């Protein structure tokens, strides 16, 4: 029977079914860990006298609570609790034999940047991590789920998870991505179309010519935000772009193993006559740079448009949501988005903290000056990204433009470290969530691509590169 890539990967990993047939016990090929969602899981193991079944299929890094400002080698943040969390991770990894990339080490960084960069993320794998943006790894044709701490404990103990089979959704993009638009714009557009709950219960396969033309890094940006559409995961079938990226990376198979693996990966593609539970098609030919105006990622519009007016909204519930969002965001209906002034710009995160993202921002910032009142922070996604960016001189461009160049970490995307903004600050951010208070209590976030973020920094108001 014809099957899609999601079902193929799922079927390959089913160990058994629950007695009622409601859920499958799924084998997990790789488990990524970090300090914020794992301490209680390790503690649970210890209390129950259990051990880690496959430390060799687990890898940890320090990212959520670390300071990108202090870069204290061998330490955490200046916050004692953050330090305690980092210490707990180090102790847990040492005790259970899990490889850890600590602050200051060559491969430290945001967990979803580090995994792919090391070649750990490979097509056809099941990957989990106690972080919702685990969907990032779907860019390689892997089935990657964000999980909670109890499930982290379960995977540590058994290398498996009980899961109900997801519904499958094909999102097919057509047309050609216009110059100056990015994967971020593509995704904000999709979420605005289907809503933040639009893919609830589904795993998405992204398809179509525009996807084939995206680089691996852009594909990661796209899959990263699957969760913002409510999806359980999102993936892209592997192709030559995938193989070219993977080959030669530290954990990637080599020699005969590579040939055999590649043969296996090629069997994963969705069969021609396979079906999905839901299909969505979106033409991208007229796509413009997007920006969010509200308090969830679905509240997004092209930068060239204006703040929506709740009065024009026929649905009462929608009307209430828009009103609430505008109230929090302190925006008046009808205001052109380009007239919205910002106080801060953040470039980084597991969504847009990779080398291509930094290059795109640097291209805009080169030879330009950010006004002094716009605090701009650039945070590389990993130590490797930082090293390579510096080798290309990107750090010099950022600093010359007036931006701060930091050390790797989740930084202002999660604001559970020493990076957070003051109440009332308005920030254009390349991260993934514009929820109330996400970047600090009372902070107003506008999600944008790195290009749009850089243009906004220079002009001091929401703007696309064309406005320069």
């Amino acid at each position: 029977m014809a099957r899609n890539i999601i079902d193929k990967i799922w079927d390959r990993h089913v160990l058994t079914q629950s007695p009622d047939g409601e859920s499958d016990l799924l084998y997990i090929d790789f488990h990524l860990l970090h300090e914020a969602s794992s301490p209680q899981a390790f503690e649970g193991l210890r209390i129950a006298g259990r051990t880690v079944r496959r430390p060799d299929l687990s890898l940890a890094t320090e990212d959520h609570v670390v300071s990108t400002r202090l870069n204290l080698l061998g330490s955490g943040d200046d916050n004692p609790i953050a330090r305690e969390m980092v210490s707990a991770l180090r102790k847990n990894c040492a005790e259970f034999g899990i490889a850890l990339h600590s602050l200051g080490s060559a491969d430290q960084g945001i967990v979803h940047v580090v995994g792919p960069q090391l070649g750990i993320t490979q097509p056809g794998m099941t990957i989990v991590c106690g972080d919702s943006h685990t969907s990032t790894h779907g860019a390689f044709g892997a089935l990657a789920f964000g999980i909670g701490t109890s499930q982290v404990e379960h995977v540590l103990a058994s290398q498996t998870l009980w899961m109900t089979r997801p519904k499958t959704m094909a999102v097919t993009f057509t047309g050609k991505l216009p110059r100056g638009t990015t994967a971020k714009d593509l995704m904000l557009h999709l979420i605005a179309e289907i809503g933040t709950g639009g893919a609830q219960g589904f795993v998405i396969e992204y398809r179509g010519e525009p996807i084939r033309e995206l680089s691996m890094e852009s594909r990661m940006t796209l899959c990263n935000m699957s969760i913002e559409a409510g999806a359980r995961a999102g993936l892209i079938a592997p192709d030559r772009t995938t193989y070219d990226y993977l080959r030669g990376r530290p954990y990637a198979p080599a020699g005969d193993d590579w040939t055999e693996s590649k043969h296996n990966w090629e069997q994963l593609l969705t069969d021609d006559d396979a079906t999905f539970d839901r299909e969505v098609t979106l033409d991208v030919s007229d796509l413009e740079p997007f920006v969010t105006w509200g308090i969830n990622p679905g509240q997004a519009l092209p930068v060239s448009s204006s703040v929506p007016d709740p009065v024009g909204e026929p649905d009462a519930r929608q009307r209430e949501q828009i009103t609430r969002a505008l109230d929090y965001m302190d925006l008046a209906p009808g205001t052109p988005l380009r007239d919205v002034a910002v106080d801060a710009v953040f470039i980084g995160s597991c969504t847009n903290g990779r080398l291509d993202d930094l290059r795109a921002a640097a291209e805009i910032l080169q030879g330009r000056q950010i006004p002094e009142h716009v605090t701009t922070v650039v945070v590389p996604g990993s130590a490797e990204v930082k090293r390579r960016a510096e080798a290309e001189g990107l750090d010099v461009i950022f600093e010359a433009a007036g931006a701060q160049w930091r050390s790797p970490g989740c930084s202002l995307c999660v604001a559970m470290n020493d990076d957070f903004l003051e109440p009332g600050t308005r920030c254009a951010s390349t991260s993934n969530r514009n929820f109330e208070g996400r970047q600090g209590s009372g902070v107003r976030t506008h999600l944008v691509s790195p290009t749009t973020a850089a243009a906004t920094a220079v002009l001091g108001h929401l703007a696309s590169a064309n406005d320069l």
Partner: protein
Amino acid sequence: MQKVTSHRGTAIALPQSNIDTDQIIPARHCLTTKRSGFAPHLFSRWRLDPDFALNDPDRSEATVLVAGANFGTGSSREHAVWALQDWGFAIVIAPSFGDIFYTNCGRAGLLPIRLAPDSHAQLVDDVLNDPQLQIQVDLLEDSVEWSGRREPLLIDADLRRRFIEGLDDIDLTLAYDQVIADFEKKHARIPMTRK
């Protein structure tokens, strides 16, 4: 996990859609290595508003949260579930839930119940009108009862069984140790070691 077959209690209603886990418990209050101590920070920013439902002294004993659609969307932080439990909630009723939040509820023992949109809208109205309204949830009967109404509850069969039997998830899985070992042998991947 503790067994739950039925529950009776009063409720708080937060009917707006898309309440994300960052609202339930902001990230900075997840700075801990513990599973408890979150109650003071539950909805911490919204609680600054004296009119916010959690600040209503008539509802301080509530154990049922009646929430809007797509409740618990966003971050995978299980701290959101722990915080609701720390406050005293045993049940969350909504038309739909964020997927990871829903799973986390099932693992941590906070019972997530879905109601059909019409029944849910009625329940929201009734809860808003009466702080003392008693809600009876019965998993064995698959029903939610209040004010003489009786509506069918919706829950994944898998989760329903977990609550009724009070299963320890990991113990259950480790009983399949041989199946896991056989799979590992048969499907031994190319070893994931650094070159």
